[in-house]
């Protein structure tokens, strides 16, 4: 499998995805969407790692990716559990309603 993809292109793609993820997190008010957007960002980071690993021909990039995967899973599980609780308590997933603490 030969390709002559420029490293910059992949990183740029990852960066773009990362930025899209950021945009998603800020734009959306629904917590589920925010969580999704965070997943996008993590994925972008994973992509960057894979690209780097591939550039150096090392497995480390993929290893890191796997750990990211584990972390994403862990986080999503707790995140979703929290979402359930929030929904039960607030009957809404609007993040802007969670402003009780401020000042």
């Amino acid at each position, binding site marked *: *499998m*030969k*390709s*002559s*993809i*420029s*490293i*910059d*292109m992949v*990183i*740029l*793609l990852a*960066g773009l995805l990362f*930025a*899209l*993820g*950021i*945009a*998603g997190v*800020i*734009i*959306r*008010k*629904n917590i*589920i*969407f925010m*969580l*999704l*957007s965070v*997943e*996008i960002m993590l994925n972008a980071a994973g*992509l960057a790692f*894979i*690209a780097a*690993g*591939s*550039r150096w*021909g090392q*497995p480390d990039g*993929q*290893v890191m*990716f*796997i*750990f990211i*995967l*584990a*972390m994403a*899973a*862990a*986080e*999503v*599980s*707790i995140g*979703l*559990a*929290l*979402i*359930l609780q929030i929904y*039960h308590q607030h009957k809404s*997933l609007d993040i802007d309603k969670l402003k009780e603490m401020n000042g």
Partner: protein
Amino acid sequence: MDIAFYVTAAVTILATLLVITRHNPVHALLYLNVSLLSHAMLFYLLGASFAALLEIIIYAGAIMVLFIFVIMLLNLGKETAEQERKWLKWQVWAGPSLLAAVLFVELVILVSSSDGTAYEPAEVTPREVALSLFQVYLIGVELAAMLLMAAVVGAAHIGRHKRLVLHRFLKEEPEENVHEEEPVL
């Protein structure tokens, strides 16, 4: 193979864009799945076939399913979509998007200021990955296990749902509804 890369990249970007703009959660989720699959394709193109597989199995499979579960459980459908439509006015998203764009531009500038030599993606076989995982990074794997354990314990505790107890004699132990299973590694 450049074409394949660019097409996949385009698909990824498009799908991701749709994820963050859709109103209906389920739609968004599906687009995210598309995006993840194209990610897998990218991984493959970059010579990381093992990672590509894991992306599909765990991410697109397991993790997304979790989302689906929750969405189903909370019965998020049309109403949510309506709500999202109301929320997603341009006044709301213009500013944040601009921020994200600025950040992206900065990234682009910074990244492109590096040497930028094209390179050959070297293939890294699953075997190498596995060896690395279980030899060099063995402790890392174990730590990952602790990480997942933390997640499980935490999710189990938080997700637990107390029922309303109607009669004090019939007070039952709080039932544990584990919405979570340990993702396979």
